[in-house]
């Protein structure tokens, strides 16, 4: 089922552009200037590398969210109802959606990282691997977010709502602009927003700085909130349809 589902996803041009091409394009636009390439950060990285990791997180996030949010469209189309006339268990359906979200997320991270490596981003070897893996794994929180929103919002184009929401959350969580550049009040608030933890953890192998405990707590709590919300809506959904 997964190969078929992947093929369908790739047929959707919007998904391809937003999750695979846009993060890499953002990096080329905002992160690869010559200043960023010469300014050093951490142990063996440059600022371009720092921006690249943030963009990889952003891409993984978008991919995971849109993967989870597929349930919205499939419910609207009556497809989930059709699947209930097959031996597929509702829980397996959710499992498949999460696996799909994570596969697309992995591709998105690889595309962004490859683009960065070819255009001047520098990271120490352990950070290339560590940042990419962490960006990918932590995006699981957004697979849960996408599922929750997919069940909550009846819209067929749920990503048109979630895309801007993710952009705002990314600003709020210090993914596009480091939080300490925005004043201390803002920096405090940022710690409570869902993108903050993922960004901090993913960049840790490069900067080796910041409070990992706060970031981990952030990721765990938000994952619990979104997964709990998704489970709640999911139960209501299967009871009713």
């Amino acid at each position: 089922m997964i190969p078929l589902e992947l093929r369908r996803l790739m047929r959707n041009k919007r998904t391809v552009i937003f999750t695979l091409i846009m993060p890499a394009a953002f990096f080329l636009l905002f992160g690869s200037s010559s200043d960023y390439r010469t300014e050093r950060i951490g142990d063996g990285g440059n600022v371009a590398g720092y921006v690249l990791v943030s963009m990889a997180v952003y891409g993984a996030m978008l991919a995971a969210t849109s993967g989870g949010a597929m349930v919205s469209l499939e419910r609207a189309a009556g497809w989930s109802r059709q699947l209930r006339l097959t031996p597929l268990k509702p829980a397996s359906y959710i499992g498949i959606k999460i696996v799909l979200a994570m596969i697309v997320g992995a591709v998105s991270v690889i595309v962004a990282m490859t683009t960065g490596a070819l255009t001047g981003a520098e990271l120490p070897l352990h950070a290339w691997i560590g940042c990419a893996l962490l960006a990918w794994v932590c995006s699981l929180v957004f697979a849960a977010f996408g599922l929750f929103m997919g069940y909550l919002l009846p819209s067929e184009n749920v990503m048109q709502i979630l895309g801007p929401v993710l952009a705002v959350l990314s600003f709020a969580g210090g993914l596009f602009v480091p939080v300490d550049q925005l004043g201390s009040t803002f920096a405090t608030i940022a710690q409570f927003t869902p993108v903050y933890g993922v960004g901090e953890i993913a960049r840790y192998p490069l900067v080796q700085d910041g409070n990992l405990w706060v970031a981990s707590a952030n990721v765990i709590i938000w994952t619990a909130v979104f997964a709990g919300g998704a489970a709640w809506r999911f139960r209501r959904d299967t009871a009713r349809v």
Partner: protein
Amino acid sequence: MTTTALSAAPAVHLDAVVKRFGTVTAVDGMDLRIRPGEVVALLGPNGAGKTTTIDMLLGLAEPTTGQVRVYGHAPHEAVAKGLVSAVMQTGGLLKDYTVEETVRLIAVLFRKPRSAVGEALERAGIADIAGRLVGKCSGGQQQRLRFAMALLPDPKLLILDEPTTGMDVGGRHDFWTAIRQDARDGRTVVFATHYLEEADAYADRVVFVRRGRVVADGTASEVKALAAGRTVRATLPGAQPADLSRIEGVESAEVRGDSVYLHGRDTDAIARHLLTRTPARDLEITSRNLEEAFLTLTADEK
């Protein structure tokens, strides 16, 4: 009835089934048994409870009280075993898949071999558009795709919920040709419809449903008999039903106040008798077609 027929579980068994949604009672004490191999039409107006009944047969809804059995199993078990499948009225398709991919996905879920996909497409008459995106298919083609999906588990019971709604005449004909060809192999078919001609042409048995209850149940020919003949209405104060029934050609008679209703085939003779031998006046002759029988049986009281 033979012993094997007695011991075999009915294809469908509804026992005093009630389904309420809040204060609304959609199905109100439905009893129905369908034998394996029957082709049954569920006929009734919108809101009669046809779709709710089908949802319960498919395990998509649980009855509030009463019991639903499909080949002796709880509906969700029957679905998982591939004993029952359905062609729904609308929806249930993703437009980014091709026709072939959609059927292949269902095949994967039922653990059927790749060859079953081609066979289902062939039987549903859409092998020629296998590579087309679902979003680019016509309504009739999408309906035959739903049919192909329903055929995949090779179900013993096939349920169709108003399957030809929105199809043109040609599409409807092609669709029913495919269904009939398939039913010839002994599959039990239950279809909901409000097209009378469909119930008449394709069902062995017609079950009239009104307000969540079965109000009439018979073979298609019994339904046709119900529809045969005409009715003479006349004003005839003080008439006795027993006297009226003795009039030549009258098959049944009814008295409602000063009006009499006489049903029969030779309504000319009945009218002649009323006008020449009785003080009857204000005669009206109307035909009782299937439409009228349908309306009488299924219309809500005003």
